[in-house]
């Protein structure tokens, strides 16, 4: 018998992500990902000065503000063929790294850990046993029995008050949950600690960017940070040291809490390395340039088709010629007019119908690369890096797979990262790499300044006539690209192809499903009323639909309603 599950956030103004799935014999047989939100926000930039576009672009999204700011200035710089000074590159890189670390930590602990940890197991845990387990996994300094006892007491107090507070809405006791009480307590304790460290990572963004959210220091041609080692109010040695000491606090949390936690929990759910693979074409752009001209990158990019890592095509530059040609957006199944456009020619003219299974059903366009759907995100980042033999990627990936395999008591391979759990593991691997790179880029900046280079900005010159450019960034959720067309120093087109558009894309003109939809196929569903397994797979992508509204609803009507039809 086929039943249909609809997970629909009942939202006031804009929707978010809606998932429809047909379940047959306990497994998903068909899926649709729909965004119920109009995404034509770029249109407001048309006619504006390209130098101020980043200021608006970073308001596209509430959480990933910095990524849009940086993609926007990179797009205009690309159109102008304008290089930026090395200091500007390093400052941007430090902002990007710490934004990403912050985002990845929040994703694992605060968005998705409770999909795997059954909070109701926590009161049964033995804090002493938890501590010895935790100490066997890592040398994290905050793994004492007292630390675990104190976290456990918080849960007990909440449970005995009869009000579950933050836990009121979990799928507790679900048959797909099977961590021991001790592992549950371990993960939950670090969930509480994580808040402190994601905050510290964000503080680095604030020091360099002026404030968060919404950094203030971007400019086409570089950054607006004045560097003067003798003056207050600019980027001084004191501030650089403050950044370094924050980095030194964040790194141990990433390497000794987040990374081992993900490896341990992944090893305890090895079946999830066989579920949720979906689209096996992968795209990542190179990022963290090492010099002003962006000729060498610390995060490699490229494409993999059909999961064939041996045939990886590396990208040489941040916006490789092939990438520029290959990307299109397909409106066929989205609520927009027209069919397939290159982003420079992209159109965002609404054509709303109802949700039609076989017609239009979402506000998300379908980006394609040489007509293929692509998966983007940390997993793509790790797979294209690993395939190219990138040493830092190999180091942390091999370490993760070794730990996961040891816990799982079976061999988990690189290829099995193409799964729901693989996306969690890849995000932790990427975070471990970024923590190493944070130190590197802080040193690159400090040494470059100490060598006497204080330049942070090359002024832009706009030519008469029409120019085009693309700015890319390998953001926390994957490849982001902003495409600009400038005529006589005014924007005449602006299209942002965001990571979630790639992953949440609908079917296209050829009927190919997008990555969310493909990954849900054959997902088990033990209880259609409580589709925990679907949430695990969807959460593994770190969805980010609502680059948008936050209107408060006192009746809580934003509740994501699960409906079995």
């Amino acid at each position, binding site marked *: 018998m086929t039943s249909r599950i609809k997970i629909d956030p009942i939202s006031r103004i804009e929707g978010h992500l809606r998932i429809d799935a047909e379940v047959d014999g306990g497994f998903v047989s068909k899926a649709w990902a729909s965004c119920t939100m109009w995404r034509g926000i770029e249109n407001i930039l048309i006619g504006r000065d390209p130098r101020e576009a980043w200021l608006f672009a970073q308001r596209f999204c509430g*959480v990933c503000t910095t990524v849009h700011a940086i993609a926007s200035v990179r797009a205009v710089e690309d159109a102008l063929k304008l290089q930026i000074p090395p200091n500007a590159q390093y400052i941007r890189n430090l902002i990007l790294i710490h934004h990403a670390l912050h985002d990845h930590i929040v994703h694992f602990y605060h968005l998705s850990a409770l999909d795997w940890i059954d909070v109701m197991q926590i009161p049964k845990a033995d804090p002493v046993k938890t501590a010895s387990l935790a100490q066997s996994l890592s040398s994290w300094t905050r793994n004492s029995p007292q630390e675990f006892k104190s976290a456990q007491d918080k849960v007990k107090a909440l449970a005995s008050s009869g009000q579950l507070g933050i836990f009121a809405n979990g799928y507790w006791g679900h048959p797909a949950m099977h961590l021991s009480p001790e592992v549950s307590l371990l993960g939950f304790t670090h969930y509480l600690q994580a808040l402190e460290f994601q905050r510290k990572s964000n503080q680095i963004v604030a020091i360099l960017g002026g404030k968060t959210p919404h950094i203030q220091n971007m400019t086409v041609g570089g950054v607006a940070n004045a560097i003067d080692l003798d003056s207050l109010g600019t980027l001084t040695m004191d501030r650089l040291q403050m950044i370094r000491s924050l980095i030194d606090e964040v790194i141990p949390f990433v390497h000794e809490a987040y990374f081992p936690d993900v490896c341990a929990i992944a090893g305890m759910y090895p079946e999830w390395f066989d579920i949720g693979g979906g689209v096996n074409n992968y795209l990542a752009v190179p990022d963290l340039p090492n010099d002003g001209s962006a000729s060498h990158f610390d995060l490699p990019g490229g494409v993999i088709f059909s999961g064939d890592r041996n045939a990886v095509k590396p990208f040489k530059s941040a916006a490789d010629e092939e990438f520029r040609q290959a990307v299109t957006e397909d409106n066929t199944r989205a609520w927009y007019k027209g069919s397939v456009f290159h982003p420079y020619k992209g159109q965002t003219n609404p054509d709303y119908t109802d949700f039609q299974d076989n017609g239009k059903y979402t506000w998300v366009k379908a980006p394609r690369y040489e007509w293929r759907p692509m998966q983007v995100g940390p997993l793509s980042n790790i797979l294209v890096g690993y395939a190219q033999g990138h040493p830092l990627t190999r180091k942390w990936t091999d370490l993760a797979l070794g730990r996961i395999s040891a816990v799982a008591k079976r061999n988990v391979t690189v290829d099995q990262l193409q799964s729901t759990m693989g996306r969690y593991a890849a995000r932790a691997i990427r975070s471990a790499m970024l923590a190493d790179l944070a130190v590197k880029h802080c040193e690159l900046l400090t040494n470059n300044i100490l060598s006497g280079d204080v330049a942070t900005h090359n002024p832009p010159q706009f030519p008469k006539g029409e120019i085009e450019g693309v700015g890319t960034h390998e953001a926390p959720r994957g490849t982001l690209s902003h495409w600009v067309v400038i005529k006589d120093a005014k924007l005449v087109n602006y299209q942002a192809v965001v990571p979630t558009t790639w992953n949440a894309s609908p079917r296209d003109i050829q009927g190919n499903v997008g990555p969310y939809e493909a990954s849900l196929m054959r997902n088990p569903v033990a209880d259609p009323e409580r589709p925990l397994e679907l949430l695990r797979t969807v959460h593994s992508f770190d969805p980010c639909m609502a680059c948008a509204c936050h209107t*408060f609803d006192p009746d809580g009507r934003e509740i*994501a309603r699960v409906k079995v039809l």
Partner: protein
Amino acid sequence: MSEVLIAGIGNVLLGDDGVGPFSVKVLESQYDFPHNVELADLGTPGLDLPVYLLGADAVILVDSAKFGGEAGDIRMFRKQEILNIPPSTRIDPHSPTLRESFSLLELLGAIPREFLMIGMQGGRFDPGSGLSTPVRLCIPHIIDAVLRELRRLNVWCEPKASVKPPGTWWDSLRRNTTGKALLG
């Protein structure tokens, strides 16, 4: 002195959703605040919200709201009313998370001692449309509500000697009608 946070929440590019950040800019342009008061435009912070609330003794939030009134109507909410909202199933990290933020802070024992949320009913939320006239006209009510709450908290601010227009740079969007034309 204890820390007071006055924060605007919302997306300034989406019509009346920007009423919170707009109100904060108006407050900044009209009053001098003591050092223990921080004003912030938090945008749409989603799950990041608790981080910004950590460490504050008193919090005043201004946000657009939907409670079924006329555009420009105001409703106030205290801590308990927020905690009484039913929790939701999270699909993405951006969903409105005031209730969740409170629960997390409660768990950490870090929930602000004093809390007021000033919600204003919005009317239109089209990209680039700016604040609607009814909402714009009712901004002074929000300012009054913030000032009353500050007095209740025994925090005193001074009107600025010379008032400049609020720094709502995004308001220039209203001159650009492209977004609206496309929507129409």
